């Protein structure tokens, strides 16, 4: 087969000009693209408005399809629940009893905690959930790890707010459209979360690895403090993420740190909660950090 190059204009002056101006237009477009790329790296907030609109365009489709996907998977897993129901029932009852004991213990500890805090006259700011949304999409063809959330500025979401699920931390909002927002996941390389080990409270830093896992390094160089199965939680340092949110569980040790798997899997959770930043000043900080991103 001969290559279909043949847009040779021949002797027609008009065709020659057409090809030439097409070439000039293409080179011009490449240059414009280059300038826009440099702008979007140097000052990402330049495109905040137009990217917000693009988010709003894609989110409803994703949301509608998500319902269908959830229904389909729900049918399969729902049928599975009827299978072996008696044994499952017994196991769930045992679990519930164990949980009840733990819950009573936890309530007692909370009460004690409140009293101790009152004694120390610690003041904690009122915190609350801003909005609850579904994870309706992700950057599945890019090396960066973003998720799309079905809530936006209309629901009170702003850039820089931390996002969590029942299981643990998910990430933070980096772009907000009117009906949807983009979340920088914990597993993204650019997301650095100050954290600490639950066992011993050693301060660590969690950085994404881009493949769904998290790199964990101790702040102080020395003996590797990690063990397989350790849980890390946010430390509250930096003021963006509130303290004591679970982040990840250590799955593998390496030379001077460990690799952990986030506890909240964005593909599995049904709802994500957008919360206020721990320290209100942090949101301005995060906006500036977003510019440097």
């Amino acid at each position, binding site marked *: 087969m001969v290559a279909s190059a043949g847009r040779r204009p021949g002797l027609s002056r008009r065709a020659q000009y057409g090809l030439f101006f097409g070439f000039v237009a*293409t080179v011009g477009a*490449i240059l414009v693209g280059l300038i*826009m790329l440099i702008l979007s790296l140097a000052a990402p907030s330049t495109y905040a408005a137009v990217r917000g609109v*693009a988010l709003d365009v894609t989110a409803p489709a994703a949301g509608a399809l998500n319902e269908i996907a959830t229904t389909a998977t729900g049918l399969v897993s729902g049928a599975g629940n009827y299978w072996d129901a008696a044994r499952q029932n017994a196991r769930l009852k045992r679990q519930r009893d164990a949980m009840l004991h733990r819950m009573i213990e936890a309530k007692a500890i909370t009460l004690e905690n409140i009293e101790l805090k009152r004694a120390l006259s610690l003041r904690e700011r009122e915190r609350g959930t801003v909005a609850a949304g579904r994870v309706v999409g992700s950057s599945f063809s890019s090396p960066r790890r973003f998720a799309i959330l079905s809530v936006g500025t209309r629901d009170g979401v702003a850039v820089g707010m931390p996002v969590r699920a029942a299981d643990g931390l998910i990430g933070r909002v980096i772009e907000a459209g009117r009906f949807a927002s983009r979340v920088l996941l914990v597993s993204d390389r650019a997301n650095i979360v100050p954290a600490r080990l639950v066992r011993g409270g050693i301060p660590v830093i969690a950085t994404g690895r881009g493949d769904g896992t998290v790199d964990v390094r101790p702040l102080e160089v020395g003996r590797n403090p990690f063990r397989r199965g350790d849980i890390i939680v946010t430390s509250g340092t930096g003021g963006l993420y509130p303290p004591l949110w679970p982040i990840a569980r250590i799955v593998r040790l390496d030379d001077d740190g460990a690799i952990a798997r986030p506890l909240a899997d964005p593909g599995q959770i049904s709802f994500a909660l957008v919360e206020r930043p721990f320290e209100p000043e942090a949101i301005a900080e995060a906006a500036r950090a977003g510019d440097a*991103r």
Partner: protein
Amino acid sequence: MVRSALAPRGGGLARGPHRAALSIPAISVLLASFTAALPIVSLNGWWPDAGLLVLLAWRLLRADAFPAWVAAPLGLVHDLLTGSPVGLSMMLWPSFMLALDVVDRRTMWRDYWIEWLLAAIFLAIAEVAEWQVATWDGAELRFATVAPAIIVAIFSYPLAALLASRIDRWRLGR
């Protein structure tokens, strides 16, 4: 003997190109970019870039599927839909079109293997560029994290080529 006059309407004669035949290639690339809106939540970004795959498939199938500059607005929309840095695809896609024009002048013969090889090269360039831009953007990933994405993209090219040739036959009414 089958008489075409007795064939069902629209089956044999009187079938010309589709009314929007000229814009269908560009529209199909646009629709492929819209797959970014699918509710796929992946922990690793190994899925192929559907927009780029379909663009390359069209360009390798026909040199005149759309003018080279059309790749720039398509790339811009792709950037906005996928959330990658604005301007990345807008710069890459028309560059690929120009590069393929040069390749067309240089190669005498073309078969499926050469087309796949060309597509593989451009898909790899696109992934590496995306990785490099992510590095400049503050996400210094190891190169090993994008290698699977390149392999997946290369092996999904034949699918895009098949899609483009089917659409091409449909739009030309053949």
